[in-house]
């Protein structure tokens, strides 16, 4: 006979499932349906065109450029966020005066709204009067072309993203570090391990479950990240920072091509699903028994 506790679990489970179906499944199906139709706006009568939108999108060189931009943006920013996040977490895991205050400050960028970070970054990197621009110029490094060249623009959006979201990795890794039993370090030291060996053979393996989740989440979020890039560059210059979410948005909301935008979004969703599936096969979240 089911206990009262079971009823609570099932109620929560079905409620969650219903909400997911409504707010996630519904829009996904709607996007899929739209991608099979041609419409110039969301109020226009859609005309069924089958897979024509997909055919049109995949032969567009801008689609593949956007895909490459998205991969570069996601991989570079995740790599930097993870490396820096681990480094900051290792420092914050040490005991030092005002440790709590520093930990609090370290999470600050993550608490700021993206628009604030984007505006601050623009202010710091303004080509003429930006604080960092002027500082670097005064130090003799010349004027940094933050957004003036395709590669520097790509790196600038990565930099802004790393600034904003590294604290998330730091917090997660810091929590992971505090679960590592000190006995493991003591045993390794007895075997003659130095700081580097301790990190490679004790810390990193122990952090693997945390890092698996962090990389997965950050990967999904960065691949779909729209706001920071849109606020900073709108995909420019010369399409250098235009990735699939921006391309989908522009097609659907600016270029009067709702079906094309939905096709880009659907393809992006499919590709991300495949990558996530492969990732979970390679790095399963549960240890095999």
């Amino acid at each position, binding site marked *: 006979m089911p206990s009262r506790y079971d009823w609570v679990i099932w109620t929560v489970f079905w409620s969650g499932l219903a909400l997911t179906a409504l707010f996630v499944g519904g829009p996904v199906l709607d996007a899929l349906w739209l991608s099979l139709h041609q419409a110039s706006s969301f*109020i226009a009568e859609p005309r069924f065109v089958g897979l024509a939108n997909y055919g049109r999108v995949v032969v567009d060189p801008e689609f593949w450029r956007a895909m490459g931009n998205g991969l570069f943006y996601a991989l570079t920013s995740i790599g930097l966020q993870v490396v820096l996040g681990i480094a900051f977490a290792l420092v914050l895991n040490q005991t030092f005066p005002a440790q709590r205050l520093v930990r609090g400050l370290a999470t600050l960028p993550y608490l700021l709204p993206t628009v604030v970070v984007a505006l601050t970054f623009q202010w710091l990197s*303004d080509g003429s009067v930006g604080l960092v621009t002027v500082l670097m110029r005064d130090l003799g490094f010349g004027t940094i*072309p*933050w957004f003036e060249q395709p590669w520097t*623009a790509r790196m600038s959006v990565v930099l802004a993203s790393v600034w904003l979201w590294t604290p998330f990795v730091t917090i997660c890794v810091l929590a992971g570090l505090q679960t590592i039993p000190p006995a493991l370090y003591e045993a390794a030291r007895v075997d003659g391990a130095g700081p580097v060996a301790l990190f490679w053979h004790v810390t990193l393996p122990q952090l693997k479950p945390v890092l698996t989740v962090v990389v997965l989440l950050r990967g999904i979020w960065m691949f779909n990240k729209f706001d920071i890039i849109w606020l900073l560059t*709108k995909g420019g210059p010369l399409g250098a920072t235009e990735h699939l979410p921006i391309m989908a948005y522009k097609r659907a909301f600016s270029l009067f091509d709702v079906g094309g935008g939905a096709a880009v979004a659907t393809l992006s969703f499919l590709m991300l699903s495949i990558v996530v599936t492969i990732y979970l096969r390679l790095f399963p979240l549960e240890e095999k028994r």
Partner: protein
Amino acid sequence: MTTRKTGGLSRRSLLTAGAGAAAATIYMPAVHSQVHELRFLNGEPAVDSVRALRVAAAQYEKERRIKVTIDTVPSGDAYTRTVSAIKGGRPYDISTLIFVAHVLTLANEGQLTPITELVNRHKWGKRILFPVNGQHYWYMYDYNLCWLFYRKDLYDSAKLEPPKTWAQLLENCRKTSGTEGGSQRFGMATPIGNNDATNWMSLAYMWADGISLFDDKWTNTFASEENRKRAAAYLDFFGEMYKTMPPGMTQAGFGTITAAYSSGQAAHAPYAGRLIEILEQRAPQLADKYGMMPYPDSAGKQAAVNHGYDGWVVGKTPMAEEAVRFLEWFSDAHYINFLHSAPLHFQPPRLDIYEDARWRAHPLIEKHAGAVKTMQGFLDDPNIVIRSVDTEGPAPDLRPAKIFESWVFPEMLQNKVLKNLSSQDCVSQAVEKMNRAIAG
């Protein structure tokens, strides 16, 4: 029977009140739909503009017993909000729109009420009405023409004349560059990023030189040999002018350009009347030292200003008739009050307004009468071309809108100044991108 009391309330009365509130909540949309209310989506978020509309709304409610609710969004979000409201089942009775393709889309989908009779009651300036299938759907409230500002004091001290050609403008940009009070002053500030500002501020040199995008049969005239040559010459000129600009122009938007001019960082800048208002507010020492001119061409034969416009549409709603009555009522004194909320930026599209003593009586319009005369002259002078990417072609259409939104011309400029491609290659790439945008 004993009743458990809670602070003077019985459980029964609480339950009854709760049920009543729930029923009222369910019934409220039905009640709301019967209330005589006009919903007005305003796209001018400046506090004075909102206030002008609210005053009008309060006055209308007092006179006609019709409530007018004003919702305000940035003008760039007005179309999205309008469409969302239609999709959500509560369309706006009146909406602000700032892009001709959006009016076309809504009109073609049967979401707008024609206001041809109301529009035809007035005489309008050139190229400001955009009829769709012979009907007017848009009641315009301003021109946002874009022209060039220059520092008159610098011109006087260097004995420079307002330029008539690209070469003269380039020379003046070079001669007005320098240092002032320890800060570097640049000759020109013009955006080149992927944004509306670039489409609005950086392309009128092409219109002045006779470049067009479409003919009356929607043939891509930009691809013609003659226009390719003209566009390449424009890029050669722009590439040289770019050297007189401050760094960071890929990120420049409307605010950056006004800041560059009003702070003294740039000696020339493109903008509309808003820049004079900004000078009055933030840099009064420059407010009587500006000069205005249209964009020159290459040979000194013609000049241009970039087109800009804003207006209101009436939705196809149960309150549409009342909305038209409201606009009719609004189009006299309150229309002028609204124009006064940005007196030099909201350039009147209705020609009768220029003669209206009430409009002319605004202190800033009186003070800058010379500028107002120049602005009016842009409409009257047959040698001044008024064009923009989004209004190209014989009638409102999605094709120019797609070219506008694809950043075809901002990227053409970027190819020239950031990638140093030859001007011919930049034009060829623009033609290809244009064709892709039209076909897409």
